[in-house]
């Protein structure tokens, strides 16, 4: 019998919604919430021996994945299942990180989420199977997760037919027709009305629901930038292109950025003007005036920065989800992001 630990978030554990997003990891014996239906689909050969959950905001903090993994390991599982996370970005990221950590610890792991979830790109070699877009699709999403879990437990590979979203490692294969012929056939298929014909599915931009408006005079506001503005010398080595990380720095208390103390390491444009006057990238001088005059209630004392130059869509989405969690923890209601 396979021992399974199921990872879910605070909402599906029945603890609470956004109000409970900061709860630390916790554990219970047996299945919880949607895990009950999942356990029924997996029985009798496989048993959910424990369920671990964590608040979605807490799960993004440093060290959280290690805490979660400790709870998972205590249940001595043969297999870890995470999700389904649907389109919840923080939950999907947590599922991806938890299953990657489990994989690194030598435990078989599998995550389920919608194909547009930013967590898909963080899962590395861990298989991710597609779920529906929302909890309304829980039934079929659990069926697919259970079927994939059974295959994985039998050491069979998961493919697109099982709903696998992320691509397994590339294998070179010989095909019978040259690329030129296949490309022409694809064009003809498109002209014939098949809009989906492709050998490589391309990432699509995902529409974002606009946040509700806020009154700036009552709001805490943060300054963000993808202009690669960092302390002179780039001490933390932010990348100039294809950034894989973002950084945070304190804003100087005087309310102005001194030229020479900062530079832009962005590789996508000439940084001469930014280096002459960093306010051309991060408008701290005017933001300070606006705070003093009461146009904004409070200016966040840090800025967040990355380099928006050839950033992969997956990384950009992840930064956005992490920034939102970070800023919400700091009580921020609105941000001004300068884009280059």
């Amino acid at each position, binding site marked *: 019998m396979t021992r399974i630990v199921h990872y879910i978030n605070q909402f599906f554990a029945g603890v609470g919604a956004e109000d409970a997003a900061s709860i630390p990891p916790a554990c219970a014996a047996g299945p919880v919430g949607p895990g009950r239906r999942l356990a029924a689909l997996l029985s009798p050969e496989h048993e959910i021996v424990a369920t671990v959950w964590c608040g979605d905001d807490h799960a993004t903090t440093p060290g959280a994945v290690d805490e979660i993994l400790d709870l998972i390991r205590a249940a001595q599982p043969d297999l870890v299942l995470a999700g389904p996370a649907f389109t919840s970005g923080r939950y999907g990221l947590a599922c991806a990180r938890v299953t990657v950590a489990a994989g690194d610890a030598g435990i078989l792991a599998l995550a389920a989420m919608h194909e547009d979830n930013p967590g898909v790109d963080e899962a590395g070699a861990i298989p991710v199977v597609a779920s529906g877009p929302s909890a309304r699709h829980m039934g079929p999403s659990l069926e697919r997760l259970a079927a994939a879990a059974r295959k994985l437990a039998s050491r069979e590979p998961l493919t697109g037919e099982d709903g696998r979203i992320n691509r397994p490692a590339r294998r070179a294969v010989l095909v019978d027709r040259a690329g030129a012929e296949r490309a022409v056939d694809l064009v003809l298929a498109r002209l014939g009305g098949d809009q989906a014909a492709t050998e490589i599915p391309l990432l699509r*931009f995902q529409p*974002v629901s606009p946040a509700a*408006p806020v009154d700036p005079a009552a709001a805490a506001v943060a300054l963000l930038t993808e202009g690669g503005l960092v302390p002179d010398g780039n001490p933390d080595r932010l990348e100039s292109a294809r950034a894989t990380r973002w950084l945070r720095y304190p804003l100087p208390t005087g309310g102005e950025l001194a030229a020479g103390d900062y530079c832009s390491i962005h590789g996508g444009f000439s940084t001469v*003007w930014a280096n002459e006057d960093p*306010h051309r990238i991060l*408008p701290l001088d005017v933001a300070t005036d*606006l705070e003093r005059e009461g146009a904004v209630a409070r200016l966040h004392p840090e800025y967040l920065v990355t380099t928006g130059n050839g950033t992969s869509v997956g990384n950009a989405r992840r930064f956005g989800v992490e920034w939102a969690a970070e800023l919400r923890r700091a009580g921020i209601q609105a941000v001004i992001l300068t*884009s*280059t």
Partner: protein
Amino acid sequence: MRVGAPRIVPTRGIPYPTGDPSLDPAGERAWRRQLLERALAAVATPVAGPTVFDVEAGAKKEE
């Protein structure tokens, strides 16, 4: 617009989004002030999809 950012204030140049080197320092700071004021007005405005908030004109919606 294409990537779906909900509220956008257009600026004058990629290398200086909140600046304008063709202006003298006082003029540049005044332009930066106009941009930030427009940004705060955008934050206070309900939008249904990607919306441009020009400094010069009022808000115009594009799909």
